[in-house]
């Protein structure tokens, strides 16, 4: 039995009665409300009773559950309310799910990112559900004059077995809402779960498949204007002058102006990445008019000078350098090659790696690289804002509203409580939407126009804006003694403008002499989180190297990893190994079994890879064949340990998506630069994985355990890069070191 103290989780239990009357809240409700089961007609109650921030119960027993976190496709809008419903003990078909607005006084961590939604929401959501249930039990006990511990609940009904009394939650809701929250709350035992662990369909599914307005792009209010920004065509440029004579005279155009995105003296937080300090804005009546006027602007650009800014975030205050110059991919690659030859900052050292390398009978050294990547969410960057003299209404796709709130308050000169951020369903995020520059831009434009505005980026604007996955390199070295035993391991990572090394991850902890180093080169190309930051490159490099190393040592690649993990489990090296070696080995063993790893299939080439990130363990086996001299992925078998799986079918969907995404980026993903400009700005040149390129089958196997849930949106993504590379090696007889792999494969003929 788990008892939790509600006092440590105070804000979830605030009852803000003003909520119901808030006009602004209701103005958005047509976008937020949804019923999970369209075939069940849920009759709305006459009156709602709020039991805490997350839960309202109607007089007829209908339940509204608030989904706190922004939804970008990982299905938290279904799975987080499932956790509430479980502990509340209600029938899922009587539940209405609503997207919460950003409201930090009421909800914990309204942040979608780092695969932490379910992991960090697990305890608060269970507690909120159990607390509401307890209030209902106490309400019934008081009404029936029976002891509370004799009352049971099931599917939204309270029972007192001895007296035969029963009542629906709706009948007790008014009494429950007036009670004081008890100090100790009992959570269900895991074996009592009825909703968690069963597959529930996406609560927004019916709206999605019928084209209902769900996204920022679809949002509209009376008098709303459309705005677009003409950003510089290359990193390292800024506006010198604008001739808007022709554009201004075009139909529907209301204004053209230049505005600063942030105040000069503003100290940025970790999510205040703005690629360009100024924006040339075109505002008009319709998107088509504004698009055309934007093209008619005659702008003269000039080169930026070296500059710096102060950033407070990521664990301290730092000075970020923005160098002048028009960068190119050719120059990036040569700079990274030079970087990997120079000493770098030591991130971790175990034993005497230098000494061991000096004594080695053989040293194996390989260098891996990967390009910048654009996120390319299907919904281009956009945001609605309506800023008046004393308040601001923002409706936009944003993963980290808390951080953008700080920026908005500083930029608009409004107190935070006068700024309302509504969390739109995002048409994808992948990390890019954690950086809320578009919210600030839309607000600044609305403030300037004194009108509601929807800011829209074209696909080209979106792809050329920056906040990319950085370009990376990593050089791996392994020292073998005369008996072919691994005696030392060295990774040196580099990148522009950050390095990719997670120093305390496997195989750290499994090798006596270990060295991890990293260094980076400044750039004016902006970067940001991209599905599993740094892991999305380093996993592919590390797991490709381990595969090659196993072969050099004459070992099976799975057995070799298991040997290392056994060492890390029984006699770990160092103190800060951030993984559980037994769980890591567990997924490898499971994938070995499920893929029939020992059996070879004719003409099928297999690669294995495993990785730990975002608190979860994944092993993947990828099977490909060569058809018409092209690799075709036939099947991917994945083993995942992410603890308890809340919504299994939705979890499989996300796992499939991460695998498809990873294969796409491994095969094709690449953004290159020339004279500071990205060489691809739309899907005609930027190759994304499509239906024909996708694997023909994916099998996802979850380790069954009672561990609290951990991340799922990201962990399946990083290892698949190496599963692709290792399978391609089997098919082609040649190792692949440079992403995207098919560029190299095509070059080979």
């Amino acid at each position, binding site marked *: 039995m788990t008892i939790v103290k509600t006092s440590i989780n105070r804000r979830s239990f605030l009852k803000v009665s003003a909520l119901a009357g808030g006009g602004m809240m209701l103005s958005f409700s047509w976008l937020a409300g949804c019923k999970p089961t369209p075939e069940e007609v849920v009759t709305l109650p006459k009156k709602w009773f709020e039991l805490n921030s997350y839960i309202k119960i109607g007089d007829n027993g209908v339940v509204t559950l608030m989904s706190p976190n922004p939804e970008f496709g990982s299905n938290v809008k279904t799975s987080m309310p499932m956790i509430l419903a479980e502990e509340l003990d209600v029938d899922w078909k009587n539940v209405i799910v609503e997207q919460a607005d950003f409201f930090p006084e009421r909800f914990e961590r309204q942040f979608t990112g780092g695969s932490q939604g379910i992991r960090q929401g697990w305890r608060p959501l269970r507690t909120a559900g159990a607390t509401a249930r307890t209030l209902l039990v106490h309400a019934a006990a008081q009404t029936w004059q029976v002891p509370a511990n004799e009352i049971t609940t099931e599917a939204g009904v309270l029972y007192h077995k001895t007296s035969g009394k029963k009542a629906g939650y709706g009948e007790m809701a008014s009494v429950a809402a007036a009670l004081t929250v008890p100090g100790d709350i009992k959570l269900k035992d895991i074996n009592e779960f009825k909703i968690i662990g069963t597959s529930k369909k996406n609560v927004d599914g019916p709206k999605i498949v019928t084209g209902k307005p769900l996204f920022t792009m679809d949002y509209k209010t009376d008098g709303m204007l459309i705005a677009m920004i003409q950003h510089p065509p290359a990193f390292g440029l800024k506006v010198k002058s604008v001739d808007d004579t022709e554009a201004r005279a075009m139909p529907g155009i209301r204004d053209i102006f230049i505005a600063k995105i942030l105040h000069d003296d503003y100290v940025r937080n970790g999510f205040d990445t703005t690629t360009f300090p100024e924006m040339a804005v075109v505002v008009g009546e319709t998107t088509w008019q504004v698009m055309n006027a934007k093209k008619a602007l005659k702008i003269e650009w000039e080169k930026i000078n070296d500059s710096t800014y102060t950033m407070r975030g990521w664990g301290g205050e730092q000075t970020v350098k923005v160098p002048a110059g028009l960068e190119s991919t050719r120059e990036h690659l040569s700079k990274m090659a030079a970087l990997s030859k120079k000493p770098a900052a030591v991130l971790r050292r175990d034993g005497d790696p230098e000494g061991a390398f000096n004594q080695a009978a053989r040293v194996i050294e390989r260098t891996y690289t990967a390009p910048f990547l654009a996120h390319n969410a299907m919904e281009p960057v956009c945001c609605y804002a309506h800023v008046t003299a004393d308040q601001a209404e923002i409706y936009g796709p944003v993963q980290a509203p808390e951080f953008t709130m700080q920026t908005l308050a500083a930029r608009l000169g409004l107190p935070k409580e006068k700024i309302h951020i509504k969390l739109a369903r995002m048409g994808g995020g992948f990390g890019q939407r954690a950086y809320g520059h578009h919210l600030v831009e839309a607000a600044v434009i609305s403030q300037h126009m004194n009108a509601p505005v929807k800011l829209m980026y074209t*696909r080209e604007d979106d792809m050329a804006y920056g906040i990319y996955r950085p370009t990376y390199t990593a050089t791996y070295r392994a020292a073998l003694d005369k008996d072919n035993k691994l005696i030392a391991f060295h990774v040196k990572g580099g990148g522009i403008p950050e390095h990719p090394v997670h120093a305390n991850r496997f195989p750290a902890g499994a090798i006596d002499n270990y060295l991890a180093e990293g260094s980076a080169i400044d750039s004016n190309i902006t970067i940001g989180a991209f599905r599993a930051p740094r892991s999305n490159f380093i996993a592919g490099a590390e797991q490709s190297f381990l595969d090659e190393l196993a072969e050099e040592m004459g070992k099976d690649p799975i057995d070799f990893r298991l040997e290392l993990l056994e060492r890390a489990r029984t006699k770990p090296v160092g103190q800060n190994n951030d993984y559980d070696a037994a769980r890591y080995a567990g997924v490898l063993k499971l994938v070995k079994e499920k893929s029939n790893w020992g059996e070879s299939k004719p003409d099928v080439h297999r690669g294995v890879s495993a990785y730990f990130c975002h608190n979860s363990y994944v092993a993947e086996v990828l099977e490909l064949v060569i058809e018409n001299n092209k690799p075709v992925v036939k099947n991917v078998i994945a083993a995942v340990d992410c603890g308890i799986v809340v919504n299994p079918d939705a979890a499989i969907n996300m796992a499939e998506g991460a695998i498809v995404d990873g294969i796409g980026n491994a095969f094709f993903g690449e953004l290159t630069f020339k004279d500071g400009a990205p060489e691809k700005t739309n899907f005609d040149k930027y190759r994304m994985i499509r239906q024909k390129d996708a694997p023909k089958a994916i099998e996802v196997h979850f380790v069954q355990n009672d561990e609290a849930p951990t991340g799922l949106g990201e962990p399946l993504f990083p290892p698949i890069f190496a599963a692709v590379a290792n399978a391609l090696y089997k098919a082609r007889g040649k190792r692949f070191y440079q992403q995207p792999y098919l560029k190299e494969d095509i070059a080979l003929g």
Partner: protein
Amino acid sequence: MAVFNLNVNGKKQTVDVDPKTPVLWVLREHLNLVGTKYGCGIAQCGACTIHLDGNAVRSCALPVSAIGNKTITTIEGLAEKEDHPVQQAWIEHDVPQCGYCQAGQIMTAAALLKNNPNPSNEQIENAMNGNLCRCGTYLRIKAAIKTAAANS
């Protein structure tokens, strides 16, 4: 500006717009049919797919002046009761993740099944290759099309 008489989802609609305006923006901003999505503007991603006389076309690069007498169907008008077999199959397979591309996927799939009620895997892949899904729901899309074919 010019006046165009359009047949959209079985209804007569009149708009007064620049003749070069892509049908996508006429639907979204003049007729309030926002189910058809903007993704790329150059007919490369399929998010804007509609039916023109029953055939799947990309509305983002199709000027309204090119429509003539052809009838337009959008996701909102795919089935009167919003229960087209493809829509039902999409729910059954719980296809969407972010959901942004799915209206376009469904419109392409519905047009495919109209012309070819029992497509092979290869035919599905060919027909659907122009519709990007950044979340990677391709396997479910394929499975849902097979279910819809079986239920049609």
